[in-house]
């Protein structure tokens, strides 16, 4: 009989909270912010369907300091999401070959972040223009 007795070390149950995985967990948690913002809009829609009275309550909520702070936090999380999303994006794409050489992922991310910022900016400008 062999003395072989492989030993499996258990994973730390809190690996996700420690480096090097902390940034990954934070990135994933931006999903909470995205979902919360979706829910905020969803409740707006609920109030809208319930009629003007309910909707005014919703507006009052939006104007409350609590909501403003919440949205500032959501914004920060959303910006982190934008950056990390575009950092991950090149990983989900086939290698891009430009001039016979692989196009660096870092550059792709930079371009994508600029495009993303541009989209948000254009939407913002349109809103300001419409609201004028």
């Amino acid at each position, binding site marked *: 009989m062999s003395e072989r007795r492989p030993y499996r070390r258990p994973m730390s149950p809190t690996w996700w909270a420690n480096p090097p995985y902390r940034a990954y967990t934070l990135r994933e948690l931006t999903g909470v912010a995205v979902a919360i913002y979706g829910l905020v809009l969803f409740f707006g829609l609920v109030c809208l369907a319930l009629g003007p009275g309910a909707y005014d309550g919703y507006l009052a909520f939006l104007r409350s300091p609590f909501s403003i702070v919440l949205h500032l936090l959501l914004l920060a999380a959303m910006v982190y999401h934008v950056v990390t999303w*575009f950092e991950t994006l090149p990983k989900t794409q086939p290698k891009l070959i430009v001039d016979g050489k692989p196009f660096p992922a870092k550059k792709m991310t930079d371009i994508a972040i600029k495009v993303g910022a541009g989209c948000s900016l254009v939407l913002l400008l349109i809103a300001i223009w419409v609201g004028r």
Partner: protein
Amino acid sequence: MSQFVQEKRSISPLFWLPFGAGGMLSALFGPALILITGILAPTGFLLPQSFESYDHARAFAQNPLGKLVLLAIIALFLWHGAERIFLTLKDMKAGPLLNLKYATYGVAAAVTVVTVLLLLAVGF
């Protein structure tokens, strides 16, 4: 055949595709949306507070294109969040997988269905 060949398909793509779509949509427009609906309009800074008044909101929700936009944002943002939250809870071993699925995908599915109904309810 090797034990590592995957005979049985995962149904993950069903969740992964809306996750990806929501991630992309929020990455492109998320910051502007939060700014507009959550900060600028409510405070009246750069945008009039009337921007999201009942009438404006109703008109938007009654427009077929507006309906589509609302559905896309609400549903996809939730599916995006659901996927990420589910995986994180799974990493944290926060509970039995089935419960976690109900708490995440379940919520996203419910919100999606209700959103569709509401959008029909506000009329055209």
